[in-house]
């Protein structure tokens, strides 16, 4: 038996106290319902945006998340002004915007970034025009613009859960045509894949994901959660299936870490999540460079 007060006696007790203290630190935020809801929403959205982002980034349409969130802002603003249901109005608005972008690219043969720029800025401008002068909506619109992850309600959680399950199941069921169309849509069409239908399906999933993410992460930061995890995953793997999985895991885990950090640093949760994902990207660039022993070049994405 160590003598009380000796080093052998002190060490286990210090370790135990530290463990208790650290567990308190780790678990304390979860004693608050707003944090539990926010963390759950962030993890689900991180996974959904991560997996959808792979399909978006590899098609060379990285900007679509940014653009579509701005386009849906127009729908959200109109829904608020007219008293319509937010999810239905913004959903229809987002879906139509995504279809317009896809059809503009397909039929007019202009580049994806130009089509996204035209459709989404016009929709965003419409939203701004509708809400200008309506000061009573300023607070709601602020939530849509910058996100309010710690103000997530049970309804929001349910909507996010439904969209997350829908997206994961759809990607699982349509894995083959999604992969072929993303790789080479023209040849996929020649092999009998209904590419226009697959594009519509992707637009629908993206629009729904952005709508449920908008109140939580905010219009201005959605693009980052769609783009950064897939690019980070791409640096770490050369397989499409692994990239999907890795991007979803990275999106979910960085969202959890980000929301934790935001609690203790007292910073905006959406911004902290994005900064965590950026840090993860920087680390993976370093890892990829080290693995390739100086012969490292960033892979191109899409287009």
């Amino acid at each position, binding site marked *: 038996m160590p003598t009380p007060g000796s080093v052998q006696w002190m060490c286990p007790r210090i370790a135990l106290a530290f463990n208790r203290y650290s567990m308190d630190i780790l678990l304390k935020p979860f004693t608050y319902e707003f944090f539990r809801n926010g963390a759950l929403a962030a993890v689900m959205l991180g996974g959904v945006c991560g997996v959808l982002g792979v399909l978006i980034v590899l098609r060379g349409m990285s900007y679509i998340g940014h653009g579509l969130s701005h386009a849906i802002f127009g729908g959200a603003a109109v829904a608020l002004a007219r008293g319509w249901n937010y999810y239905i109005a913004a959903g229809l608005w987002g879906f139509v915007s995504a279809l317009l972008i896809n059809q503009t690219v397909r039929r007019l043969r202009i580049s994806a970034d130009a089509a996204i720029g035209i459709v989404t800025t016009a929709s965003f401008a419409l939203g701004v025009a509708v809400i200008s002068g309506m000061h009573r909506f300023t607070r709601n619109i602020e939530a849509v613009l910058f996100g309010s992850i710690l103000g997530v309600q049970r309804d929001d959680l349910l909507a996010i859960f439904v969209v997350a399950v829908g997206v994961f199941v759809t990607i699982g069921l349509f894995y083959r045509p999604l992969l072929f169309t993303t790789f080479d849509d023209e040849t996929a069409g020649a*092999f009998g894949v209904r590419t226009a239908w697959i594009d519509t399906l992707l637009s629908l999933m993206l629009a729904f994901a952005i709508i449920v993410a908008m109140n939580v992460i905010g219009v201005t930061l959605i693009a980052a959660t769609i783009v950064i995890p897939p690019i980070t995953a791409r640096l770490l793997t050369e397989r*499409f299936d692994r990239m999907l999985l890795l991007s979803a895991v990275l999106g979910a885990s960085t969202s959890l870490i980000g929301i934790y950090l935001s609690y203790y640093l007292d910073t905006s949760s959406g911004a902290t999540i994005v900064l965590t994902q950026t840090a993860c990207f920087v680390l993976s660039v370093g890892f990829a460079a080290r693995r390739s022993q100086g012969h490292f070049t960033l892979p*191109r994405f899409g287009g």
Partner: protein
Amino acid sequence: MINLGEKEHLSQPCVELINVTCAYSSKIVLDGLNLQIARGQFVGLVGPSGAGKTTLLKALLGLVKPVSGMLLVKGVPVGSRPARSVAYVPQVEAVDWNFPVTVEQTVLMGSRASRTPWYTRAERDSACRIMERLSIAEYAHRPIRALSGGQQQRVFLARALAAQPDLLILDEPTAGIDMRVQHDILHLLTELNHAGLTILMSTHDLNAAAAHIPWLVCLNQKIIAQGTPETIFTPKTLNATYHGDMIVARQDGVIFVQERPHAHPWQRSVDVPAHRPSV
């Protein structure tokens, strides 16, 4: 003994174009084309850039809709059903080779044997056999960006064969690869053709076409001529197709085609112009 139904089936052409006209906006690319390709035939499409070769191939795949006329594959109008019996090998430059897929994953894209969301054991085994036949099995788990031009072409060919097609359409499969690999690819196509596959391919390489493809179609908006390389490759036919000054040489049964080099005006001139650089 062959009954009448089977006889009709066998005599039916694999590809039939009836007065097909294709256009982009107001520019006519193919003008009233009539063409028949029999089952088991190996046909090469030759013609200058912009002659409508790729448009013709894409029209057969249902990717380009003709303004008028009818395209039939195995007697069925193109676009009226899923293109189950046709496989396509696009130009190698048409895709992003940095895309994160392995050789095996790319080959499996062509498989239509199962409707399950995942690839079945039978599909993987079939893909493996095709890769072995095309000598790319050792690269099965390699990312496609690590392949050479010839290997990339074989991967696309393997993907097309994974679809178990009756008709194989290839868009310039010999472009951008060295002469030896070109001949390897064309030998491979000849073997597949001997095994019963109908093949239609476009090419710019007239010498390789003369050496390997038994039936050629000269195209420039219209069909200028068609036949065996011996009958087609004459200065008259080639000049009509390419609107150029073509030289055709034959030696030991081998045909060589070359466009007569254009001389610069200063080379033709007797007087040396003042700005000619001094050596």
